[in-house]
């Protein structure tokens, strides 16, 4: 057999593009951490990971639950349910689990909205849910509008394999980065000017990276806007259970219900257990759509990304324990608030302002005063110093497409209290050094 021409057979455009987004500093910081990870005992000078929005403040509650309910993770003492569970690959998902997800989502919103389990489509994580919705709602070349700053992962999740584009809706610090009607209009007009068809608006509420819950007023405006433009609204409510005071969260579901479900065919909600329950590894995402055709299409498409039946079974059991879920949600919120207050206090001591936040696993920190120049390059230079000198992996606002330089996202829930203290000390030392240099 003679070897063919030397040229290698090309892969697809998708494979060779860099729309996967992993060249972004968001991921570069992770690499720095992976190469030199902090450990209190074995590597106290290592990089502290503050770029990963994970929730580890309440895992003891999960452990306690498992201690008391070993049957939840198995298949029952006789393992009689194993066979049925192992064979279950129906894309409708386990009825019991969908039921519990619906109820859990209602609990988070304290009964202010109802969720029909038949409208829930399960996916292996919110990453898949967002991509799936994009495939369903938009064609290649179309776009979604997204308020900035936004989660860097969207550049991959929504664009990479779908061929759909993102047009940013620029928000500014002048009003706490809230979405305005003007900003929405501007983005829409921009898209029209570029001859790109707008298919929808994606809102993350509570916001990542801002750590703020969207107000009811803004949600009403957003809903009016998408209705007027006849486009879809995707509300990513993955952090809905992480709002420190539960009454400060308004879900788009509440607005839809208040409007008597009028014109709600365009509204779709994304959820996941990765943040609220701190179970990212279990890959549990969900799409909730008020649109029957979207539900049907999403269900079919979820074949590519079903949730393990073993995991569905376990979580159905866990979520059915109302006492557990009530306690968990309440305790989790308290701990997150405490953590949030601790870090914002610590940052204030270091002379750093944060955007006032009331949700999420991170704060939105303003380091603009430390910039040599108020540009993206200036920001990235500062960021590089923070990663390599202060040994903290935080996420630069430019990777979140923030239109103002100098903002950074800092995660506070993915580490122990002790580690957070170490991190705050380092920040303080770093800012003091920087200020001293600036004064020279």
């Amino acid at each position, binding site marked *: *057999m*003679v*070897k*063919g021409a030397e*040229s*290698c*057979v090309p*892969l*697809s455009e*998708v*494979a*060779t593009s860099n729309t996967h987004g*992993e060249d972004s500093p968001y991921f570069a910081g992770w690499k720095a951490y992976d190469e030199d990870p902090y450990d209190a005992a074995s590597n106290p000078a290592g990089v502290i*990971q503050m770029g*990963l929005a*994970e929730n*580890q403040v309440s895992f003891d509650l999960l*452990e306690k639950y*498992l*201690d008391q309910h*070993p049957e939840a*993770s*198995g*298949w029952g*003492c006789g*393992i009689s349910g194993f*066979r049925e569970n*192992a*064979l*279950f*690959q129906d894309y409708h998902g386990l009825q019991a689990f969908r039921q519990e997800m619906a109820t859990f989502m209602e609990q988070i919103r304290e009964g202010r909205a109802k969720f029909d389990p038949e409208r829930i489509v399960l996916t*292996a*994580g919110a990453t898949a849910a967002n*991509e799936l919705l994009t*495939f369903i709602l938009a*064609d*290649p070349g179309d776009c979604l509008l997204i308020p900035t700053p936004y989660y860097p992962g969207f550049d*991959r999740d929504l664009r990479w*394999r779908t061929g759909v584009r993102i047009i940013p809706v620029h928000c500014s610090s002048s009003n706490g980065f809230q979405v305005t009607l003007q900003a929405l209009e501007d983005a829409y007009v921009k898209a029209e000017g570029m001859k790109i068809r707008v298919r929808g608006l994606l809102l993350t509420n509570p916001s990542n990276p801002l750590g703020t819950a969207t107000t009811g007023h803004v949600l009403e405006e957003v809903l009016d806007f998408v*209705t007027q433009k006849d486009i879809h609204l995707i509300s990513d409510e993955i952090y809905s259970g992480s709002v420190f005071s539960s009454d400060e969260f308004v879900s788009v579901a509440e607005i839809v219900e208040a409007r008597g479900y009028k014109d709600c*065919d*365009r509204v779709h909600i994304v959820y996941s257990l990765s943040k609220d329950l*701190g179970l*990212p*590894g*279990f*890959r549990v995402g969900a799409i909730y759509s008020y649109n029957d*055709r*979207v539900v049907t*299409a999403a269900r079919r*498409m979820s074949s*590519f*990304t*079903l949730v*393990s*039946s*073993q*995991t569905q079974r*376990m979580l159905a059991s866990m979520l059915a324990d109302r006492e557990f879920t009530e306690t968990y949600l309440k305790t989790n919120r308290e701990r997150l608030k405490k953590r949030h207050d601790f870090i914002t206090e610590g940052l204030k001591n270091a002379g750093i302002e944060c955007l006032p936040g009331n949700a999420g696993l991170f704060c939105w920190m303003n380091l603009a005063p430390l910039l040599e120049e108020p540009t993206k390059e200036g920001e990235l230079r500062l960021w590089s110093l923070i990663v390599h000198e202060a040994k903290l992996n935080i996420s630069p606002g430019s990777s979140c497409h923030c239109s103002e330089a100098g903002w950074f996202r800092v995660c506070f829930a*993915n580490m122990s209290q002790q580690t957070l203290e170490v991190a705050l000390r380092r920040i303080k030392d770093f800012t003091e050094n920087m200020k001293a240099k600036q004064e020279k």
Partner: protein
Amino acid sequence: MFEWSRDWPINGHRSESTLPNCSFYFFFFFSARCSLFRYVPEMTGHMRIYGGEHPNQQILSRIATNDGHGENSSYFDGWKAYENDPFHLTGNPKGVIQMGLAENQLSLDLIQDWLKKNPQASICTGEGVSEFEAIANFQDYHGLPTFRKVLISTRNAELQLLVLTVQAIAQFMEKVRGGRARFDPDRIVMSGGATGAQETIAFCLADPGEAFLIPTPYYPGFDRDFRWRTGVQLLPIHCHSSNKFKITQAALETAYRKARNSHVRVKGILVTNPSNPLGTTMDRETLRTLVSFVNEKRMHLVCDEIFSGTVFDKPRYVSVSEVIEDDPYCDRDLIHIAYSLSKDLGVPGFRVGVIYSYNDAVVSCARKMSSFGLVSTQTQHLLASMLGDEEFTTSFLATSRTRLCRRRRVFTEGLKRVGIHCLDGNAGLFCWMDLRPLLKEATVEAELRLWRVIINDVKLNISPGSSFHCSEPGWFRVCFANMDDTAMQIALSRIKKFVYRENDAAVQAKNKRRWDDALRLSLPRRFEDPTIMTPHLMSPHSPLVQAAT
């Protein structure tokens, strides 16, 4: 029923997701070739379901509204018949027996036993709460992080677990191939089932509009997995019963040339080995031909080896991984394997798909794409434990193969007794059954008519060959590993009754026509069963005549 808009393309198709009625469907898609469903990307223009009188109508994407999901195939129609009237031995003994689902249910008891003996893999004590403490903190000799650590799921614990899981899977894949090929765990990327694996591979290797060649008959799910969201085409390499459906050099060349003449860029070939629906393994010669072909034409070769652990008879299994190990001229960058635990272990619910590529860039790209369908860490933990137990996997594979072999033999012998022949097979969870003698005419329509009779009257959901794009009408795939022995016997007896009825009907029809002296009047010696020995004439289409000649 359906509302048409003015801009509905002449050759478009429905975008409602409800069940079609066949004639409606054929109205749009009927063609000389009459493939039951065809995905033609250029047909899906911009569509509105409703006309202008619904100003706020939400329009979905082309992908969401076309037929790429594949559910309009007859492959699934039979499933629907089953779902409406499912067989149950005591509750619904006259219901439809599901023989269209290629599941391996014969050896789940072995896994159950292992789970009972290894509660730490899933924290089921079976004994009581008090043991839980010890179990939850138990760290077994593989260095597997405890389930507790998995639950907390820090990124580090996740990565650590992933490493152990892929090691266990690589080991298992080697064992399935009897150690005749090595698998590097670093080349393994996990995905949401084989469905997710195939789609990911397609996304990595081809652009919209480009094509992969695929030998017929093939698993209908590929039409969705490989094409739906990717926009990639699948073009058939026609195989025929005359040589037991083997892929020939000539067939490859023909398919390739046809694509080239239509100005379609061919990026690769997709094969399934062992084959679904044939139930046969590919011989070394054919694999070498394929490897040669892709090297010469500079295209990829994707081998779906999802049934590799179900080879229960000679000839022994040859994987593409084995063939390239002793081929220094093969460009390994062209070779990719898709795998899953769904068939070999019988755990489709756990969604464990595997992409194994010899191409670094593909591994890297697939890994990034795996974010869209990672395997639950809870499940990874279970698998890493179980597949890491070599004693268990060795005995499991041996027992599973024995049971599959026995089951197939019982089934095919039962069919033989009523004169139905299956393609000789040594693998898989199904037989490729030849019902051509029962067709009034060698057409797809006749095949579907027969199929509807089998579903509605005989009450068996089997899958018609046309849904597998088979170029010869009359073949059906029948699954045998998703039921117990009793259900199997009931299925066989229904088939028997059906064949006799068909014979009687054929005989009666014949009696109305002139006698044909060329017809054989005597029964072949083999069939001693008194119920078959009838003095009536047999139709030349009778399976008994076919079997004897």
